[in-house]
């Protein structure tokens, strides 16, 4: 009942449709450009090279996802269901790799394990080992992406295991099932939705990742799209590949939606009155500690140590403080503008979704969530086409860059704003109406002050994500507009590791903020 029967105000609907159209327009334009050359598109897409790319990208995504799940299942169980020493510390340490953007992770791993890295230097002298197994290619990309994304699976698993009502397991045991059949028939089905959600995040992250694959020289979609765009001769070819990549991400989203619908139903008992009994590890605690320690060491210890090494060298040597400052200023400027625009755009979309659910609102919200499914490279490329062919004069301006960042991160602002609005009961606005206020004044005097926190949180989230964005910035930033992210990337590409240290340090500090908030709220992170 309630608002469901009423129609959304026309002005609001118009604003929402405008935002939705603006988010999908560039990509739609890209699609029409490509479709204009239908035969060419088919030829490109069905070429041996494209199919090979497809196999590589999907293969990498599958391998990373599988590894993340394989790591997370035992880790989640150890932290939540056993008497593992230092559980709370491990819980935080194992979540921290999420803070490291893939390109910074790749930079630090290359500087440690790469052909001219520290390990090689250490081994060459005394042992005469001249070649380590190469970090470049599939192996390196797989390792890097797994290490820095597995917490996307681990965190929701932990959350579910923690909230699982122990009475369910006890009921199964009481009905004659042993521990393993109980796990298989009662616990695992309830873990599946979280597992699916986490796996989706990891595979989407891998498919759309540009930083790690480009630095580790693995030819996946994003790297090849970027290269053919940069080579300037084959922009339509790049666009064709981009549309193919979008199809793949959509397929992944569709797959996840299906598994979620088929997954476990809603719990009948809410929450758990008491924590589940923990398994005593006994002597097994040593290998368990070893596992946690090894993963933390590679995913967190090694990068942090390398960052410390390069930072001290950078500070001891000649730091171009001015360059770092300028890059930081650029990063903050672009991210702040993106945050402000995204927060403003999110309001009509979130209002429609929260207050006037229906087909139109769903369509608007769905379009606003396009950024979820679109890799940064694709959005950037779409905007390049749009700004060079449809509307001239926008190419390589700050406005285009901000537009790309807004399209990519609008979902976060919409999510936060929508949640805040849903927490304000529509009855409050009705009360204001019955006391003589017009709809607009009722909104301004009641809903707006109550939802302000959520809108600001959404803006902050967009800011913190946009500040470390790499591929769109690389493609769209005006000439000379270097940001912290592009600094790290180009420094690593030419192997001047010292130059990447300070920008990385700043970015890591910025990235740590939202994760610490998430850990404090004890919830699973969103993309």
């Amino acid at each position, binding site marked *: 009942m309630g608002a469901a*029967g009423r129609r959304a105000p026309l002005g609001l609907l118009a604003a929402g449709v405008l935002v939705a159209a603006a988010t999908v327009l560039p990509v739609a334009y890209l699609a029409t450009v490509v479709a204009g050359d239908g035969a060419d598109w088919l030829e490109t897409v069905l070429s041996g090279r494209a199919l090979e790319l497809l196999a590589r990208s999907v293969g990498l995504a599958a391998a990373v996802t599988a590894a993340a799940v394989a790591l997370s299942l035992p880790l989640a169980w150890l932290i939540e269901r056993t008497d593992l020493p230092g559980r709370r510390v491990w819980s935080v340490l194992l979540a921290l790799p999420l803070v490291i953007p893939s390109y910074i992770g790749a930079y630090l791993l290359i500087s440690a394990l790469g052909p001219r890295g520290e390990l090689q230097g250490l081994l060459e002298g005394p042992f005469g080992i001249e070649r380590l197994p190469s970090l470049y290619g599939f192996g390196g990309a797989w390792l890097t992406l797994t290490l820095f994304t597995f917490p996307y699976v681990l965190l929701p698993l932990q959350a579910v295991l923690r909230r699982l009502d122990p009475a369910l397991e006890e009921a199964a045991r009481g009905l004659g099932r042993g521990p393993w059949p109980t796990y298989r028939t009662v616990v695992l089905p309830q873990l599946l939705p979280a597992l699916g959600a986490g796996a989706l995040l990891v595979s989407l992250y891998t498919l759309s990742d540009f930083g790690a694959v480009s630095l580790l020289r693995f030819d996946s979609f994003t790297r090849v799209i970027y290269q053919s765009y940069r080579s300037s001769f084959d922009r339509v070819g790049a666009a064709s590949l981009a549309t193919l990549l979008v199809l793949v991400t959509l397929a992944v989203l569709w797959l996840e939606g299906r598994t979620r619908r088929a997954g476990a139903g809603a719990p009948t008992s809410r929450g758990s009155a008491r924590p589940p009994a923990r398994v005593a590890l006994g002597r097994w605690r040593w290998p368990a500690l070893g596992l946690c320690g090894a993963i933390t060491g590679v995913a967190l210890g090694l990068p942090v140590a390398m960052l410390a090494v390069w930072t001290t060298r950078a500070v001891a040597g000649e730091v171009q403080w001015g360059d770092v400052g300028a890059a930081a200023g650029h990063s903050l400027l672009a991210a702040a503008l993106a945050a402000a625009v995204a927060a403003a755009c999110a309001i009509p979309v979130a209002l429609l979704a929260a207050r006037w659910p229906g087909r139109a609102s769903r369509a608007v919200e769905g379009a606003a969530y396009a950024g979820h499914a679109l890799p940064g490279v694709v959005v950037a490329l779409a905007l390049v086409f749009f700004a060079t062919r449809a509307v001239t004069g926008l190419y390589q301006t700050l406005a285009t860059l901000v537009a790309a960042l807004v399209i990519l991160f609008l979902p976060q602002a919409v999510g936060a704003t929508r949640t805040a609005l849903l927490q304000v009961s529509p009855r*409050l606005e*009705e009360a*204001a*109406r*019955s*006391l*003589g206020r*017009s709809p607009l004044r009722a909104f301004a005097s009641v809903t707006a002050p109550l939802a302000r926190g959520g809108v600001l949180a959404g803006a902050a989230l967009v800011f913190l994500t946009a500040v470390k964005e790499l591929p769109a910035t690389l493609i769209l930033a005006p000439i000379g507009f270097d940001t912290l992210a592009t600094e790290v990337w180009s420094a690593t590409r030419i192997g001047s590791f010292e130059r990447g240290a300070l920008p990385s340090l700043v970015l890591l500090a910025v990235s740590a903020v939202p994760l610490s908030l998430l850990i404090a709220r004890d919830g699973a992170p969103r993309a």
Partner: protein
Amino acid sequence: MSVLACRGLRRSFGAVRAVDGVELEVREGICALLGPSGCGKTTVLRLLAGFERPDAGEVRADDRLLAGPGTFVVPERRRIGMVFQEFALFPHLTVAGNVAYGLGRRGRRERVAELLALVGLQDLGERRPHELSGGQQQRVALARALAATPAVVLLDEPFSGLDAALRVQVRHEVRAILTAAGVTALVVTHDQEEALSLADTVAVMRAGRIEQVGTPEEIYGRPATRWVAGFVGEADVLPGEARDGWVRCELARVPADPGFSGAADVLVRPESVSLSVGARGGREMIEGRVVEREFFGHDQLVHVELPSGRRVRSRSLSYPVWHPGDRVRVQLDGPVNVFAPERDV
């Protein structure tokens, strides 16, 4: 004259006809709209307040058309106060701020003080809503609705957010406040005891329609339909036979409409059935067997099986103590209602 009235009011949600031709006149005093959950009573309230648009029919206040063909007055222009189910107090405003919300600048301070005094919260004006008890929140919601001197106040399940112990007390307070303010009120509730004890007029609603309107005594004592009889209070059904102005059933012969003949259902309320030991001459008496007893402290409900195997309930003061298996004399000792047999219920 009615303060607020609706005629032929209809509203559907998808395929569900929530309100299906409601006629209702709210007169001065307190009127209760009583019905089971899902009968559409809250939708009627929201249609009256202007939060929903009717598909058909009209809403009038005094003689002003509020909603009808081609007319729709928005909620803020209706001068209808509303007290929401969960009170809907503005969490970012103080108690005084909430009460002042609907007032203009002039004389605001005095009016707020006046209303806080009326609801007995004069010292709590600077508190935030969450710092108040449920009963106090209820009174703030009422004060806020009354502040702008509305023509009528609508209350949506006003006591359902309160726990049982508090409910009766707050009900008294609310009735006293409404009476003191001299305002007309329409209270939506699913609790028949609440409706009967609070209201001057009760309208019983079922499946989108009004079944009966009357004083609480009429609704309870002379229910218009068998469904109303069963919904408002407890009743047992005994089949009977009507002839020549009388209905004969297992317990007694009772007067009925002279034109009525053939099969009939006699609805017996538990307090009309009295139990005793031994015979008293003169009046018709039946022997039954006690099968169950529910003891409530102030009274008791005794289930008795009649010779035919049918059961009736008898409500009496808590003495004498009956036990299952006891043989008792069963006597009809109060008004009953006769209806034509009905298949549902």
